[in-house]
């Protein structure tokens, strides 16, 4: 089997008195590496993979992941350093399946499912079902325009409360 070369997202070394700027550069490299693997492989990298991709130790990567989670940029699986969500992507299957060509991802909600297509900038479709009647629903994006089944979107939680329990939002 031929190994597939992965792009590397090495951090820029930036010096500052308090390390804040360097943390920001580190966190951006880690965030981009997570997002790129979601795009390419529909899964997040494990911390040891991330360490190899960005050229840091696993401890540095896990510290960066915690900062990104604290900043609500990603969500970690509770009690672990494993990425659960890097919006719009979900590491776990959800009721929101996204397809583009022969690729497939999971969105965290209908916003995120459409957000996957916006993120990758490609045509595709979202498949879910009505939570009330169970009828399958399909939306499609072609040439930047949305179409598909007749449907409406419901937000049950006010915006100010979304991060109170992001797993339920």
């Amino acid at each position, binding site marked *: 089997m031929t190994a597939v070369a992965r792009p590397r997202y090495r951090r820029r070394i930036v010096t500052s008195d308090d390390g804040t700027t360097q943390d920001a550069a580190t966190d*951006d490299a880690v*965030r*981009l590496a997570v*997002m*790129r693997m979601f*795009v390419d492989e529909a899964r997040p990298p494990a911390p040891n993979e991330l360490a190899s991709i960005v050229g840091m130790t696993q401890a540095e990567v896990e510290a960066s992941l915690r900062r990104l989670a604290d*900043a*609500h*940029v990603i969500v970690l699986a509770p009690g672990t350093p494993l990425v659960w969500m890097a*919006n*719009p992507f979900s590491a776990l299957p959800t009721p929101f399946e996204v397809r583009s060509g022969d690729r497939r991802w999971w969105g965290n*909600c*209908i*916003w*995120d499912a*459409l*957000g*996957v*297509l*916006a*993120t990758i*900038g490609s045509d595709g479709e*979202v498949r*879910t079902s*009505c*939570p*009330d*009647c169970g*009828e399958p*629903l399909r*939306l499609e*994006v072609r040439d930047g325009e*949305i179409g*598909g*089944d*007749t*449907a*409406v*979107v*419901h*937000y*049950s*939680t*006010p*915006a*100010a409360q979304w991060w109170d329990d992001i797993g339920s*939002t």
Partner: protein
Amino acid sequence: MLLFRSEEDIDRWSEMRGTPRGDVMSVEQQWRLARAWFEHRLRPGYRRRTAEEAESVFAAIGLTGPFWSLTPPRG
């Protein structure tokens, strides 16, 4: 954020769960919001929007009022 067949489905679902109905938007609005929110997410240097910036994105799509507010009301 769920996709329903119709507003009647939302009403039945909310009543069955005993939860108040939230806010409803069209699929077209949701697509505009998804594009505005995520289309630059793969660029280096992304940072989370401030509350004010997020509210501006919502407002540009017609999402206003207390449900979409992220900042304390101005006295």
